[in-house]
């Protein structure tokens, strides 16, 4: 890879693309010199110190030397590189680089003096901007670099240095973010390698201070590399002052603002520059979908500090500090121009790799070459300004579109949500629909069942209405009745009770009547039965009489029949005689006979009619006879039955009579027994009365003896008293004896 890079190292860019900006270098050179010359005299006029003129003379001499260097460089680079010479070319390039390096060292020696003097007398030199620009383009000696940058930016006595100390005491909201990137800024560089070392700490301090100083920008990734490069040249405070200056003056802070709009602008500008200056490459990039931001973002955001080795990065920083963003654009064009050939042969991936890797080492050996190309790049500032306007217009339009897009997106989201909602709703509705259909089917079944039921109920209703009508009629009746009752009911309760009483009475009366009727019925029944018992005999008699009458009639009828037959016979005989007479008379009296025949015929007819009538009568009579016979039969049957009944009753009667006789006999026996018992009782009572009398007699006699004994006792007592005690014992013994006797009396009486 390196070899191929070396092949391209010398300005091998196709001449076709060069004229646009390389056609002017020759006039530009004298211009530069003129500029220096022009600027020199005023200084000389203004010069106060005599040494200044000497200095100027020296500077001019140095200028001339540098121009010669440039020429030599140009002459060197102008050496055509033939394709076959690639190896040799590489060798020559190395030599050339060393030669330029030697030039460098030569010029460096003089530059040292120049820069030493410049720094000492900055106030006068600073106004010679053209001169300074050229001087810077030659490269600032590394020892002076830090100072030179400060002087160039006029920050050597900036007030921001004082602010820095203040900022260090404060805490920044970006501290965390800054810390996160500190170790990842120049991680390979000796100064920043050590974790929490001096380099990392000072880097952090400056970044933090700036984030506090410029709150709009705060901290932006990329700025750390710029600060790191500055810190390599000067202490923290000075770095901070330079940073603040370049951020503001060179619009670097615009790049780092949160919107990073300026970066887009830079990309756009660069793209337009490529289109104008390197159209072939522009077409290639477009064809490969290779966007400017893919490789150039870091160029602007880190001012090439991440793209090139530090030596080149420092030179680029010199230019940036001296010339601003223009230097960065020119370098970009220079890089692309010098790499055009390589890039055209690569696809997107290859180009990306080229920018990420190969580019870094491509100019390592000869940075001056690239810088020189960049000095040659010319483009119209006016056009860039115009582009800027165009871009801002485009951007604002884009912003509007973005806003519109965002609006549409939110609207879309809302609509999507609505769709989701609606879908859910529709799903639920579908579910409901199905459910409803199922329900409907079920309902249909139910309605069918209900219809059947309805029909049944209708029938029932019809029946019921019929019944109802009937009931209505009933009700009407009832109403009529009730109305009649109501009339009664309208009476007072007392009346009701009386009515009830009446009704009860009536009821009782009815019941009585009923019992009466029942008894009547019973009586009647009895009567009927009696009558029935009696009737047959009457009936039979009547029937027998009828029968006799009928038989008589029959006999009469028979007689009349016989008479009729006799008459018929008479008539026939008469007819015969008549016929005989007719024959005797014959023809002479035919006419008269005819009349007679007619008469006779009529007679016979009448007779026949009579006969028929009699026959009818006869038949009727026969029928009557039949009826009577049947009646007779029935009657005889009845009679037979009656007879049987009579017999049975008679037998019963006989049995009952016998029973009665038996009972009468027993009654007689009992009467006799009663009589016997009565006589016995009389005898016994008589016997008692006799015994009573006897006892009364005995009682009387005993009472007499008691009385006599009591008299004796009294006599004895008196005699005893008289006799004193002589006969006392005999007496007491006698008393005992007597008392015993008295005691025996009741016993005798009890017997």
């Amino acid at each position, binding site marked *: 890879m390196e070899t191929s890079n070396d092949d391209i190292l010398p300005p091998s860019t196709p001449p076709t693309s060069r004229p646009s900006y390389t056609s002017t270098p020759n006039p530009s050179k004298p211009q530069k010199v003129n500029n220096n010359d022009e600027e020199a005299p005023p200084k000389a006029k203004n010069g106060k110190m005599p040494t200044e003129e000497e200095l100027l003379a020296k500077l001019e001499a140095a200028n001339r030397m540098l121009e010669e260097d440039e020429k030599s460089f140009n002459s060197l680079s102008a050496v055509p590189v033939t394709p076959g010479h690639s190896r040799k070319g590489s060798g020559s390039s190395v030599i050339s680089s060393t030669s330029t390096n030697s030039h460098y060292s030569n010029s460096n020696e003089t530059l040292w003096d120049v820069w030493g003097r410049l720094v000492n007398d900055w106030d006068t030199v600073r106004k010679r901007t053209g001169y300074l620009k050229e001087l810077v383009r030659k490269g600032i000696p590394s020892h002076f670099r830090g100072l030179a940058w400060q002087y160039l930016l006029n920050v050597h006595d900036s007030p921001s240095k004082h602010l820095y100390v203040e900022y260090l005491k404060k805490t920044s909201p970006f501290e965390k*973010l800054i810390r*996160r*990137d500190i170790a*990842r*800024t*120049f*991680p*390979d560089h000796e100064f920043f*390698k050590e974790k929490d070392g001096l380099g990392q700490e000072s880097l952090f301090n400056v970044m933090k201070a700036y984030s506090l100083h410029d709150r709009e920008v705060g901290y*932006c*990734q*990329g700025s*750390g*590399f710029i600060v790191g490069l500055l810190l390599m040249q000067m202490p923290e405070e000075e770095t901070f002052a330079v940073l603040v200056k370049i951020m503001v003056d060179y619009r670097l802070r615009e790049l*780092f*603002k*949160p*919107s*990073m*709009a300026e*970066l*887009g602008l830079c990309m756009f500008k660069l793209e337009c520059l490529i289109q104008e200056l390197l159209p072939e490459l522009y077409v290639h990039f477009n064809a490969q979908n290779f*966007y400017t*931001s*893919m490789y150039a*973002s*870091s160029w602007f*955001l*880190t001012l090439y500090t*991440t793209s090139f080795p530090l030596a080149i990065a420092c030179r680029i920083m010199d230019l940036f500090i001296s010339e601003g963003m223009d230097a960065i654009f020119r370098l970009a064009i220079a890089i692309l121009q010098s790499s055009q050939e390589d890039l055209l*042969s*690569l*696809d997107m*991936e*290859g180009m*990306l*790799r080229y920018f*990420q*890797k190969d580019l*870094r080492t491509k100019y390592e050996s000869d940075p001056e070459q690239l810088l020189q190309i960049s000095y040659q790049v010319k483009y119209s500032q006016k056009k860039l300004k115009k582009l800027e306007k165009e871009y801002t217009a485009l951007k604002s339009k884009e912003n509007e579109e973005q806003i519109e897009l965002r609006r549409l*997106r939110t609207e879309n989201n809302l609509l999507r949500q609505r769709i989701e909602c609606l879908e859910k709703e529709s799903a639920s509705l579908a579910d409901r629909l199905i459910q409803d259909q199922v329900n409907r089917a079920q309902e249909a079944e139910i309605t069918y069942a209900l219809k059947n039921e309805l029909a049944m109920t209708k029938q029932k209703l019809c029946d019921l209405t019929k019944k109802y009508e009937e009931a209505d009629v009933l009700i009407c009746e009832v109403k009529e009745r009730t109305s009649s009752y109501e009339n009664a009911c309208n009476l007072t309760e007392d009346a009701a009770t009386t009515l009830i009483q009446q009704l009860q009475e009536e009821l009782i009366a009815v019941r009585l009547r009923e019992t009466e009727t029942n008894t009547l019925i019973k009586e009647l029944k009895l009567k009927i039965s009696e009558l029935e018992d009696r009737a047959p005999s009457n009936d039979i008699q009547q029937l027998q009489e009828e029968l006799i009458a009928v038989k008589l009639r029959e006999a009469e009828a028979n007689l009349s029949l016989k008479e009729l037959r006799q008459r018929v016979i008479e008539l026939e005989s008469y007819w015969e005689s008549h016929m005989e007479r007719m024959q005797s008379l014959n023809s002479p009296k035919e006419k008269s006979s005819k009349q007679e025949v007619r008469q006779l015929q009529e007679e016979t007819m009448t007779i026949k009619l009579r006969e028929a009538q009699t026959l009818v009568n006869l038949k009727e009579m026969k029928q009557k006879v039949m009826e009577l016979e049947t009646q007779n039969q029935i009657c005889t049957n009845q009679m037979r039955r009656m007879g049987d009944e009579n017999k049975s009753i008679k037998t019963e009667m006989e049995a009952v009579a016998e029973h009665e006789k038996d009972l009468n006999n027993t009654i007689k026996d009992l009467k006799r027994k009663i009589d016997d018992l009565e006589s016995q009782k009389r005898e016994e009572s008589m016997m008692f009365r006799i015994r009573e009398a006897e006892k009364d007699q005995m009682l009387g006699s005993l009472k007499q003896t008691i009385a006599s004994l009591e008299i004796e006792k009294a006599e004895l007592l008196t005699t005893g008293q008289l006799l004193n005690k002589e006969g006392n014992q005999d007496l007491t013994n006698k008393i005992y004896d007597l008392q015993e006797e008295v005691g025996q009396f009741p016993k005798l009486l009890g017997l």
Partner: protein
Amino acid sequence: MAAGPYNYSYIFKYIIIGDMGVGKSCLLHQFTEKKFMADCPHTIGVEFGTRIIEVAGQKIKLQIWDTAGQERFRAVTRSYYRGAAGALMVYDITRRSTYNHLSSWLTDARNLTNPNTVIFLIGNKCDLDAQRDVTFEEAKQFAEENGLMFLECSAKTGENVEDAFLDTAKKIYQNIQDGSLDLNAAESGVQHKPATPRNPLNTDTPPNKEGCAC
């Protein structure tokens, strides 16, 4: 590596997104170089890496865009989402804030990529389990809720790094096979049989020589 202009039949475009310092560039470097780069400068704008992998017998070239993590760089990196077939969304398991910002990254990914873009959630720095601030389970749940694939990886040890890139590729390939990813769509992020390169020499450079220029 087999030489020849067409030693792969597909190109899948990937994008790596996520907060600052979660290890996006290191993941890419680990995948492309199979090495952990301890001193990796932070990414300015976008970086790029490639590697050829094999899925179902098909050689697939992964074109991976590694983006700057700082919020304000989204303005720059947003244009790289377009036409990405796979998006690796990275957070740092030792820093909850990087996990909390996932929803914002996911919104960007969803808005700026096509609906078929495979979004793969990566919890990086799983070697630092002692300093873990986000549990595997909750991240897994987040992934499931948002339909993302998920793995915890370590760019340092290389654990699961291959799987994350390969699984994404497998999923994309599967989407192609089942027809859900239309190769003809403008921003499918997949190219089938790349167009003839201008210089075949540059296309068959081995993948291990490619990769991020960190």
